[in-house]
């Protein structure tokens, strides 16, 4: 289909247009366009997990059980002092090692375990990760890191729920658990939305790290496509065009930000219907 389109372009718009069309639809470029899926999957599932971890973290932080409260506090504090990229690399690598550790206990001989200097102790315990496994780990990683940001937002939003609502619920005879999940968590979303939109923007930008986990994402493809090519039989001969490809990514992320902003504005208006929110109306 692409070939017929190319011939049609050559006939109607000249050889030049067809050449460029062929260049932008060659296998590598198609792979580049397709690799956007990794970014979108990581952003979507990372965000879902981040909201989940956020609610759980905030719930832990206001738990009546002290160790759980400390855990929640530790979780929400960790993002304050340590860069996200460190966690982003740490969780997948640590998980991989943990699995290999368990596998090495089962698969390697006692002799190998005692004498091994490299990791894993024997070849059988090596876990070769595929792209999809790395992608899952990237989603979980993003979820954990930005879940800590979200937990801070959710924690603040829960405090913004009018106390009268919770007291009314108590007066109606709801127990603590019901009050928490059915009233406080239900009502906090509208207060949490501006903060969560901020977390989403951070998470979206962090999806550019996928190539650090060996995923052939848009960044890696941009690097490959832009690399200079001097062999005519490989494709179009061009000097170092990487900056052009990175510039496209630069614009791509700005576009994603614009779209996200629109969507969150709409959500905010929708969620605020019928509520006398401070600062609006």
């Amino acid at each position, binding site marked *: 289909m692409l070939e017929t389109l190319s011939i049609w372009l050559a006939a109607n718009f000249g050889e030049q247009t067809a050449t460029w069309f062929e260049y932008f639809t060659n296998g590598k470029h198609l792979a580049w366009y397709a690799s956007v899926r990794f970014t979108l999957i990581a952003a979507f599932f990372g965000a879902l997990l981040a909201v989940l971890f956020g609610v759980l973290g905030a719930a832990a932080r206001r738990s009546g059980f002290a160790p759980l409260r400390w855990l929640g506090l530790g979780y929400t504090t960790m993002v304050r002092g340590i860069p996200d990229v*460190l966690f982003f690399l740490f969780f997948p690598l640590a998980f991989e090692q943990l699995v290999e550790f368990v596998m090495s206990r089962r698969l390697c001989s006692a002799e190998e375990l005692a004498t091994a200097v490299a990791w894993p102790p024997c070849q059988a315990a090596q876990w070769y990760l595929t792209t999809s496994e790395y992608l899952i780990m990237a989603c979980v990683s993003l979820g954990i890191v930005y879940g800590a*940001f979200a937990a801070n937002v959710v924690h603040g939003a829960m405090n913004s729920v009018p106390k009268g609502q919770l007291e009314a619920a108590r007066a109606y005879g709801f127990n603590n658990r019901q009050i928490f999940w059915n009233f406080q968590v239900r009502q906090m979303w509208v207060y949490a939305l501006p903060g969560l939109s901020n977390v989403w923007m*951070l998470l979206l*930008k962090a999806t550019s790290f996928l190539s650090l986990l060996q995923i052939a994402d848009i960044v890696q493809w941009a690097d490959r496509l832009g690399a200079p090519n001097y062999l005519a039989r490989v494709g179009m001969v061009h000097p*170092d065009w990487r900056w052009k490809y990175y510039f496209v990514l630069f614009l791509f*992320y700005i576009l994603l930000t614009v779209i996200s902003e629109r969507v969150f504005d709409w959500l905010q208006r929708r969620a605020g219907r019928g509520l006398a929110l401070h600062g609006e109306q």
Partner: protein
Amino acid sequence: MDWLLNNAIVQDIIELARPSLFNLYFALASIPIGFPLAVLLAVMKNSSNSIISRVARTYIYAFRGSPLFIQFFMFYSIMLAFNLSHWKPMGIADIVMHPLFIGPMVLILNTSAYAAEIFYGALKTLPKGEMEAASAFGMNRWQVFKTVTWPNMIRLAWPAYTNEVVFLFHATALVYFTLPVINGQKDLMNKAGEMFERDYNIFLHFSVAGLYFLTISMVIFFVSGRIYKRLMRHMDTGEAASFKLKPNYMR
């Protein structure tokens, strides 16, 4: 003494001391230029001239709306593209292609956008009465800026700006993921990664690297808290006393 030095954590702390200086350098080199540039951009965005305002608005939006990771790659490849045609003939290739130059350059472009948005937010909430009073006294625009706008803006923006400085420090971890390492000048993440490849002890090395980031972040919060106290010393709001290491985590 020997048991202490042979301790794996202590050894890691010693080994990561020099790399941490590179992270510090990137942050410290970016702030002195990034800060005034941010103030300038904020004033530009607040300008009544629509062209000036739009330029600043676009710049801030673009740099806040795209990942720093991509910005590093983009500017490094732009610098590379100019290398043979411009930097080499001018004889400055060694300087301008060095990560110690490009790193702060990109960080300045990035942090000035984020900080400008903070200062712009502060400019929007300035007390109108004070500015009108200053104008009524017959001050010109520069005098109003110097005596009313500037001090109020800094005071309002300081906690958020502190937060931004910490984020900037964390962002320095990205420099050597995107730029080449020259003469073994590795930063914390890079060195921790190298040590991980040596003995596969990710928990130890990444924790110690994280500890360095955590400690320096806390020092930044502490120093900034002291400066804030000084900035607010004449204000009787109790605000200064309540400034804790509790930023809003948001960039």
